[in-house]
């Protein structure tokens, strides 16, 4: 007859570990860093002119369900983040400096995921300096 007591001990500890570990479901979380232009502010946030090497504008389509991507004012054909990434990679291949600022302007109702996708496209193409244009209006009023 094996000694059951220590085995039960160990099994219970393992059980507790796996139950808790599974129920926690720690989502992996990564970060994208950006900087606001230090020349803006203090106080009212002075308007600064950032000479962007690439300007990306996001227009809302269909109230948040989709968005159109404009680069330097011209819409991309299909408007997918992949297409934007290819475009940015071409620019890098053509000799664009990775520190050149890329400025993303988004309409108010564009969903955040589209904004992050655009930023992601620029970052993965090698542009490190991605910034956001922020309108100077006071705190957002209810729509």
């Amino acid at each position, binding site marked *: 007859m094996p000694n059951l007591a220590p085995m039960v001990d160990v099994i219970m500890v393992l059980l507790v570990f796996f139950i808790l570990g599974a129920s926690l479901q720690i*989502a992996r*979380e*990564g970060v*994208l860093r950006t900087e606001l232009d230090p020349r803006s502010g203090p106080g009212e946030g002075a308007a600064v002119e950032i000479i962007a090497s690439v300007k990306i504008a996001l227009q809302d389509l269909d109230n948040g369900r989709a968005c159109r991507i404009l680069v330097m004012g011209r819409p991309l054909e299909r408007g997918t983040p992949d297409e934007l990434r290819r475009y940015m990679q071409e620019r890098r291949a053509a000799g664009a400096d990775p520190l050149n600022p890329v400025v993303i302007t988004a309409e108010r*109702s564009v969903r955040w995921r589209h904004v*992050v996708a655009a930023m*992601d496209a620029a970052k993965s193409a090698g542009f490190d300096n991605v910034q956001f244009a*922020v309108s100077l209006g006071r705190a957002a009023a209810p729509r």
Partner: protein
Amino acid sequence: MFRPPRPVSMTLNLAAMVDVMMCLIIFFLLASRLASAQYRGVDLPQAASAHEIERSEIGAKVVINVRPAADGVLDAEYVVQGWDGRRATERVLAADAVADYLHAKASQAVEHGETLSCVIRADRDVPYAGVETVLRGCGLARISRIVLSAQPDEPGGESSR
């Protein structure tokens, strides 16, 4: 008649020690995960270029969680977590309170001689206007380092939703 003492057996009882060690390891593993658990009410967007970092790499930081507004009228709601000395607290801020909150945090950081970073954990379905409020607040509070949270893409994971 004198007899030398019987030599004491010096073997370590390993089984018991391993038991205790395992319990401790499990305890600390779970505790550290729990301690680092973030606010879970937001569904982060995915980004392939997001990289996981240690929290200490960011340094002094203020975390703003942006979640879609429950009533759908406002752009977003802002959740901040704190510590009141005894337990973790969670506060929902209105859009116009965000700038003041950031300002207070920024001046605290200046007193301590720290450079503050603002971590924005925004839900993927929040309209940009909701995040813009935080960015504008950072600009007004002179916080220039912005850290955006995203899920690193996993190959084979859900790619679009």
